[in-house]
């Protein structure tokens, strides 16, 4: 049993090492992804370009424009603009906000202690709309503090941010990236590795040899487990070296639970390989059924709580949802098995169930 498994294992390793292009991509992609994600992904807007229609032309209105252009959120695009120009300018995408100061701005401020400005926002990207609105509120709050010497409030809000006090997006994305890449490598590679043998006809050759199904499965799957874990290690290392993402909890626990997740992902891959006849179909199935949902529905980027109920249920059926909670919990919150036992058990159950179905189907096809 052991010798035959070892033989398959060796064969699979030779396959992997011989195809250096794939290997290079498998190893380089996570690093490149982490560098790009680390630097590129930030939801905070900066330098939002805006123009001004100042119908008041008073010292107060000029001070308001100054306050908008000096805080780092907005950048003034000078030059005259009229109401009629706005659609054209928004379509040219050179500004996202027009600040309209009405002619009675200073008069109202002096007589009624209350005045208005209009913000015309290109909100085709709703996120931009929200940010522009929030930033404008902050700028106006500053302007009012300046005018009054205090905030016009009855009480203050004192926020305290846990786990990620600077709200850095790398701390949020990197643990998610570990989950994504483990899923990608484990599920995709396994499903392809087995279907490839079917497509090229070598599977039949293996089948007529005295190797047993379980031995084939173990020999095929183990190299990819190792590759996956190697990758996870590389990601975690580069995350902490390049971006100072902390690992506050136990590294051992993280390793063990990651192994469990890899086991689930591999079972997925195995299951697909028993269904698909060609590599192309295996690839599409894995892509559509595991990787895209993992990116979109597991809470990797988009908050699960904001989704409609049906999608929340689907996300509860995804292994990555549980693994993400585990990785983020251990890395950022520093929590342990006590808080994560349910998640670990669910993963274990999913893996066992999938593997059972996959081996059953595998044996059926062999007989």
């Amino acid at each position, binding site marked *: 049993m052991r010798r035959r498994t070892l033989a398959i294992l060796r064969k699979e390793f030779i396959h992997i090492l011989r195809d250096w292009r794939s290997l290079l991509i498998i190893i380089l992609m996570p690093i490149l992804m982490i560098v790009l994600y680390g630097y590129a992904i930030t939801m905070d807007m900066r330098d939002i370009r805006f123009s001004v229609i100042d119908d008041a032309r008073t010292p107060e209105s000029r001070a308001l424009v100054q306050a908008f252009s000096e805080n780092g959120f907005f950048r003034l695009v000078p030059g005259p603009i009229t109401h009629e120009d706005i659609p054209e300018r928004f379509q040219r995408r050179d500004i996202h906000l027009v600040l309209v100061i009405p002619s009675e701005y200073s008069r109202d401020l002096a007589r009624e202690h209350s005045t208005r400005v209009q*913000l015309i*926002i290109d909100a085709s990207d709703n996120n931009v709309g929200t940010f522009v609105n929030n930033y404008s509120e902050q700028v106006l709050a500053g302007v009012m503090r300046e005018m009054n010497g205090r905030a016009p409030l009855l009480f203050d809000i004192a926020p305290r941010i846990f786990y990620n006090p600077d709200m850095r997006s790398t701390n949020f994305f990197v643990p998610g990236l570990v989950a994504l890449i483990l899923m990608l490598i484990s599920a995709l590679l396994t499903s392809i590795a087995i279907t490839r043998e079917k497509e090229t006809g070598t599977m039949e050759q293996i089948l007529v040899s005295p190797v047993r199904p379980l031995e084939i499965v173990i020999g095929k799957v183990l190299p990819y487990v190792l590759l996956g874990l190697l990758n996870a290690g590389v990601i975690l290392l580069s995350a902490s070296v390049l971006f100072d993402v902390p690992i506050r909890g136990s590294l051992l626990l993280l390793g063990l639970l990651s192994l469990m997740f890899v086991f689930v992902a591999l079972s997925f891959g195995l299951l697909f390989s028993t269904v698909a006849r060609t590599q192309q179909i295996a690839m599409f199935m894995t892509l559509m059924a595991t990787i895209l949902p993992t990116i979109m529905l597991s809470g990797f980027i988009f908050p699960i709580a904001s989704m409609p109920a049906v999608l929340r249920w689907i996300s509860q059926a995804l292994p990555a949802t549980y693994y993400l909670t585990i990785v983020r*919990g251990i890395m950022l919150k520093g929590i342990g098995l006590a808080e994560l036992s349910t998640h670990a058990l669910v993963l274990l159950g999913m893996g066992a169930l999938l593997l059972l179905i996959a081996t059953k189907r595998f044996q059926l096809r062999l007989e």
Partner: protein
Amino acid sequence: MRRIFYLVQKEFRQVFRDKSMIGILFVVPFIQLVLLGNAITTEVKHVRVLLGDRDGTPMSRAFLQSFRGSEYIDVVGQESDEGAIARALDRGDASVAVVLPRHFQRDVLRGERPAVQVLADGIDGNSAGVALGYVSGIAAQYQARLLSDDPALGRQLLDLRRVQAEPRFWFNPDLQSKVYVVPGIVALLLLIITVFLTSMGIVREKEIGTLEQLMVTPIRATQLILGKIIPFSILGMLEIAIAMGLVYVLFGIGVEGSLLLLFAESGLFILTTLGVGIFISTISETQQQALFVGWFFMIFAILLSGFFIPIANMPETVQYLTYLNPMRYFMVILREIYLKGSSLPHLLNETLAMLIFGVTVFSAAVWRYRVKLG
């Protein structure tokens, strides 16, 4: 010409012979469209909030009561003990806690401005920021109510001058993320399908050995490539037509601008992605390699397209990198035509960039093909 026709016919037969391929082409993408259209949301809803009241006065109770009944906030419990709050955040049972200090009511009435503590899980920084915004919004509303109910309180603030903002959200007045995201998903699905279909389709012929059979026939390299491009562009256009219909029926999002322009630009985009697909097939030996190179290309094409991370937010060097990405241009074009009804003059730069990219990648692909054949 007849040769190309036969090749096209062969390609269609190959695609439609396989039932799972039909599913992959025409069923799965649209399931994805429905799923993703609902899943990809940058709106933050159902924030789980713990409320803590250390004051226990009518005012503090009324304040905390105003957190209930918002669609953005789910109140999950009452807790004012810091240790218990920290544990709830640890377990993920709550992501925000609002705690009113002792003597809240007394201090407000005396004008001493007590501090309302807001404890938030900051792991998802974006959501945390938005959630803090909700808390401030509710607090501001409550303050406005206090002021109108109790004129005595208002005297505290009487001499203070106020500037109010009146935001107008153009093109997307309700700030719905689906309006922005769904057209992007159409581009995404088109990219995935066309790149994989061409790259893996050609490499598959290499792997099985049928490409050699084609090479010994009198078909020329250009004809061979045309025989691949024509069927896949037709499939791609079909995909986008169906996708746009579904977007309208399911999400109620119609095209503001010219449909003709949208289709023409889509055709241009499909040509660039097919070019990429063919190029990938010329540098890969096995389907696995084609898959990896394709996947590699797409991850970056999607990430750097502005699909969910605005390009303006990226560091400058990364921004320059996005100019090499055809998806970046198509994403802008699609959204502008969909949301603003922009016409060609406003999209000229993007169109030209896509054209240049397409011509370059196609020439490279044909050249690589010739090298291999010769």
